[in-house]
């Protein structure tokens, strides 16, 4: 048994003050000067050591308040209020919500999974991954110390084609595949996000994290500068159309990606000429009817396919087609063709939470590629100022590479931890066994159909007596 894969996380504080969900509004005027002010009673000592960060005009009372509302309720003159923080509301967009972003910040800072207390206050079901519930009912699940200690739960996956059988040459020696499988210890590959206020330090930090984690960092070939030379074996260059960017003879590149186009064969040939031993992945945007393309690519010998959804986790042509459904139908089509084991399916786009890794795999992906979370780990607010030539409010470009690496390792550590928890609760010991295990999940659409379809159609505007 290989030695146990562990991600070592360590507390890595923010460089800026984190934007919090609410702010305190405390009137001073009209204060009764009570002998013991409710502010003294704050168990977190929020009012005792106040500070103002002038760069962000952020008051420490907002950052430290735990929202118990004790002071709000206790003040006899009702001089203390709590209000939603406008800066918090402005974070992200309808998909990358402030709550998602804030949770990712927390994970990157602590390396831990945020605990939200007893019960789940959110909606019952929602679009995309939210209409999918995982089964965590394994009655003989290992104990917690088992999951993180004694038990061996593998999160490793293989990239490439698993051979159906072994072949031997005339001398009886095993014939080796030209493109050996690449083994990564966790089903997550990092990927350069579409925007971000990046510098060479940022990229170096990401590359350091990829190497530390034993996985890859995918980025456009022309972004691989000298500073990244040492990390080549952990980089996955994305080859653009036109002349190739990666140097000849760099044996270190093990994996590269070519975007799908009508003439993809030529592009793959050119890439292979540059790096003959590297595995090639083809990036295919998720769209209606993508299954056919996947099947024909696999039939022509492509062994890694990266299914890419939009940053909101949807198909490029149909906003109603979610990544989760796209993965499911591609996986299903490959299984029906009998070629599923001949390839590796990677998925990306809109993967914003730890649970999306397990859910993508349950739907049929072998692994995922994660983009914006590795930027949000660096305190990004998804404000998109960097796309408009405005300065980044958290100066990501100035962050040292060691900090970047540590934050990203924390984030991925928290995600891997959650994957272990989920697999433990499902009684699954190898993430490769989780692939396509839709029996380990319930899908809202299917439940809805099987439960209510037999009752007939509900007429529009029909009212119950």
């Amino acid at each position, binding site marked *: 048994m290989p030695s146990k894969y562990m991600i070592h996380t360590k507390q890595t504080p923010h460089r800026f003050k984190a934007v919090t969900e609410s702010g305190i509004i405390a009137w001073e005027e009209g204060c009764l000067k009570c002998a013991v002010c409710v502010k003294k009673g704050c168990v977190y000592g929020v009012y005792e050591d106040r*500070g103002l960060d002038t760069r962000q005009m952020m008051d420490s009372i907002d950052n430290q308040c735990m929202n118990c509302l004790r002071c709000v309720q206790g003040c006899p003159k009702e001089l203390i209020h709590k209000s*939603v923080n406008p800066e918090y509301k402005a974070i992200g967009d309808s998909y990358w919500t402030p709550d998602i972003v804030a949770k990712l910040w927390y994970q990157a800072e602590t390396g831990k999974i945020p605990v939200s207390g007893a019960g789940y206050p959110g909606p019952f079901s929602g679009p995309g991954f939210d209409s999918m519930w995982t089964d965590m009912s394994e009655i003989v699940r290992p104990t917690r110390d088992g999951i993180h200690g004694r038990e061996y739960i593998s999160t490793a996956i293989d990239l490439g084609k698993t051979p159906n059988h072994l072949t031997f040459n005339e001398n009886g020696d095993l014939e080796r595949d030209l493109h050996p499988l690449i083994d990564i210890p966790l089903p997550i590959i990092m990927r350069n996000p579409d925007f971000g206020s990046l510098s060479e330090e940022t990229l170096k930090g990401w590359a350091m994290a990829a190497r530390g984690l034993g996985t890859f960092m995918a980025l456009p070939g022309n972004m691989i500068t000298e500073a990244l030379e040492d990390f080549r074996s952990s980089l996955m260059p994305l080859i653009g159309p036109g002349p190739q960017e990666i140097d000849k003879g760099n044996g270190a590149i093990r994996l590269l990606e070519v975007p799908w186009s009508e003439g993809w064969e030529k592009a793959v040939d050119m890439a292979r000429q540059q790096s003959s031993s590297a595995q090639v992945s083809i990036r295919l945007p998720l769209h209606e009817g993508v299954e056919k393309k996947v099947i024909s690519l696999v039939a022509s010998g492509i062994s890694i396919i990266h299914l890419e959804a939009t940053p909101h986790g949807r198909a490029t042509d149909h906003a109603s087609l979610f990544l989760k459904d796209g993965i499911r139908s591609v996986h299903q089509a490959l299984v029906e063709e009998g070629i599923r084991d001949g390839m590796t399916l990677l998925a990306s786009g809109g993967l914003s939470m730890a649970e999306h890794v397990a859910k993508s795999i349950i739907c049929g992906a072998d692994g995922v590629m994660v983009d914006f979370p590795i930027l949000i780990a660096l305190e990004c607010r998804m404000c998109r100022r960097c796309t408009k030539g405005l300065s980044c409010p958290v100066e990501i470009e100035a962050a040292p590479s060691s900090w970047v690496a540590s934050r990203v390792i924390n984030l991925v550590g928290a995600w891997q931890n959650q994957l272990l928890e989920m697999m433990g609760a499902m009684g699954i010991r190898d993430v490769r066994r989780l692939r396509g295990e839709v029996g380990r999940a319930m899908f809202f659409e299917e439940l809805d159909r099987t439960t209510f379809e037999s009752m007939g159609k509900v007429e529009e505007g029909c009212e119950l007596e």
Partner: protein
Amino acid sequence: MTSDKKPVLALFYCQNTHASGEDERQALEQKYGDSLKLFPIPCSGRLEPLHLLKALEDFADAGYVITCPEGACRYFEGNLRAKKRVERTREMIKSIGLEEERIGFLINSKEGPKPLTDLADEIMDRLANLPPSPVLGPSVQGRATGSRQRSKGDKV
């Protein structure tokens, strides 16, 4: 410091200000660059004299607040309190010999509430001829670009 340096304004505005979302904010940032620093606040009553004074001390030539019209505050009297606090702060800076127009407030109109962009333009116009603040010596002017590293909050 060159004399053509534009004054830097720290502008606090209540989040209930008409048309003051993230898009408007970024549009203003694009228009004014480093000479306008915007700080949305939950309610103008959240503002304390300290915010304005710290801004003047650290990076701004002027500090202004936009409040909701009288009677329209979500927290009933936040805007009235803000007004009083600004007036008090004005007195303070006057007494130490600074121009009082370095601190001010703008009350949005009740009848025809103006969008944030118009209000900001108004204040920027008003300040166009404001001389550089003597508080910010030449050595600290660079702070306005946000380049100053400060990881811990100053003690109040």
